[in-house]
């Protein structure tokens, strides 16, 4: 609390905070250490808490026998394109929802909100049939389209919060100076909102990068698999190769951690504003 702190209180507080920090980071530490061990050492006693025989063999194996590079590229392309398109589309809808009053506004907002309450995997079967009809099964474009739809609602709510923090006078002045509404949005508003938009893109990217059930359902050929689909293949096999598994996990987590560290302040802002994690 905000009153005076006793020495004992401080000690208790920092002990607790320290323990939680260790608990928070340990799983990440452990998977990294495992991935850097010599494959034989992973399954030996006593368990060592440090890679005694430091080795990159687990990583080399991933790119040699498992074709992990293809999965990484697929995930990167799908997440980047879907994340960017969803951000662009959401910028438009968020702008309208922040600046205009119109009759169907609350219905639209409600429709977006409901998608946040009802999970995207609820209709996996019908979605699969729809994508079959559109001939977009096992197709990266198809997965992108679905991901764009998944990202839009939360992204819109998040960006709307950011738009509301920017005074309307800004684009009104630009429009009086002769810019169109879209022109004012792009040339005047977007530069001001850049941090928020970058955060929204990162959030979309990470969500697509991490998405499992839709990609498992829609992608089946090896050349089109995304990383989570490939990892699902790894754990479905009878004997999990924890060496490659841990290396793959590290490579999957690393980009998202870097991106989150980069944008965490804005994401926190978006979370407390939108209050729904997509």
């Amino acid at each position, binding site marked *: 609390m905000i009153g005076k702190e006793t020495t004992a209180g401080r000690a208790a507080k920092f002990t*607790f*905070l320290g323990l939680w920090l260790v608990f928070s980071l340990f799983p990440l530490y452990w998977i990294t250490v495992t991935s850097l061990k010599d494959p034989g050492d992973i399954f030996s006693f006593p368990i060592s808490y440090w890679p005694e025989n430091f080795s990159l063999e687990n990583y080399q194996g991933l790119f040699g026998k498992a074709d992990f590079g293809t999965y990484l590229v697929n995930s990167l392309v799908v997440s980047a394109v879907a994340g960017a398109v969803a951000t662009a589309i959401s910028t438009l809808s968020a702008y309208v929802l922040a600046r205009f009053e119109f009759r169907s506004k609350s*219905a*639209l907002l409600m429709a977006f909100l409901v998608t946040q309450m009802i999970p995207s995997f609820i*209709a996996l079967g*019908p979605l699969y049939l729809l994508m079959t009809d559109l001939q977009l099964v096992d197709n990266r474009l198809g997965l992108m389209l679905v991901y764009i739809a998944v990202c839009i609602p939360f992204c819109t709510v998040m960006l709307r919060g950011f738009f509301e923090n920017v005074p309307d006078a800004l684009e009104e002045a630009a429009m009086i100076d002769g810019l169109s509404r879209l022109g004012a949005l792009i040339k005047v508003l977007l530069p001001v909102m850049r941090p928020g938009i970058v955060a929204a893109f990162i959030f979309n990217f990470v969500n697509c990068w991490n998405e499992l059930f839709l990609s498992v359902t829609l992608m089946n050929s090896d050349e089109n698999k995304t990383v989570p689909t490939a990892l699902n293949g790894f754990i479905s096999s009878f004997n999990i190769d924890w060496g490659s598994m841990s290396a793959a996990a590290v490579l999957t987590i690393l980009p998202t951690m870097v991106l989150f560290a980069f944008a965490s302040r804005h994401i926190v802002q978006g979370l407390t504003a939108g209050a729904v994690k997509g």
Partner: protein
Amino acid sequence: MSGTSTPTSGVTAAPSVRKEGAPPRGGTGGGRRRRDFTTRRGLVVAAFMAPAAVFVALFTYYPMIAGSQMAFRNWNLTDLTDTSWVGFKNFREVFTDPAWGTVLGNTALWVVGSIVPQLVIGFALALWLRRRFRLRGLYQALIFFPWAISGFLIGILFRWMFNSEFGVVNDLLQKAGLIDEPVAWLADPDTAMIAVLVANVWYGVTFFAIMILAALQSIPDELYEAAALDGAGKARTLFRITIPYIRVTLVLTVLLRVIWIFNFPDLIFGMTGGGPNDETHIVTTWMIKITQQGDYGKASALGLLVVAVLLVFATFFLTATRERGGGRRGAGRGGKRGVRA
């Protein structure tokens, strides 16, 4: 079908009034110019909303609506020759499935067993993070990291740590003298449920900490000063000032998390895959398994049940949101800007 109705309803919504009352532009604009202006606004609304509405309608709402009729049909990918209407047969199959009882029990345990520790630990963290200290920013950034990882990968990380032979959890517990023999955590449904809960608590505490910290920072210091003058102790201050003040944020965060954890099959899917013997399934992991087996009818029936439960929760949640209208003192920064419906 909502696929076409949503965007067109945007077009018909032409008379869009400016938010803070339309200022009389140029004063003597006259009726014609004014109308021209408002229809143009209507077009802007429609054009800007259309892409988002089309995507969500086609890829989210259409499958959901199309799927709901499958719940009443014999719809199995393994045999598509007979897709006749079967009434409530799929629902009966769900309710009479031997796994149903276990699935329900697990779902309740999963939600309650995750939420309670997440709330308690998240609250404690928020209280302790409230006062500035050196490196507090770094600390917050570090404990935020679990949030970057997908639920599925978290399941995998903990699956490895809870490994019965080479798992680090057994090793640490043995070193601490808490167990004598290695425990086959994920081979027994009871210990497997404990393991998935530990993983989910690890993951979810940060969210509570962030939301509660934001709310705590909205409490004016004067309240605490007054309480201190009145000689209130720590516990009294906590229960008489802090908790009542952020009550609304607490309720909303908990409701939101209930919905979210209920919907969160990823972690269990990655960690146990619902095993051993389907005994760690929650409703959503079970539904995914049934979908993967191709029984879309039964999966859709289950999906409708999930949606029904979620709608009840969501209504409850939104009513609670609306209750704290303008100027309510309880809403913290985190709460005040919660979901705006």
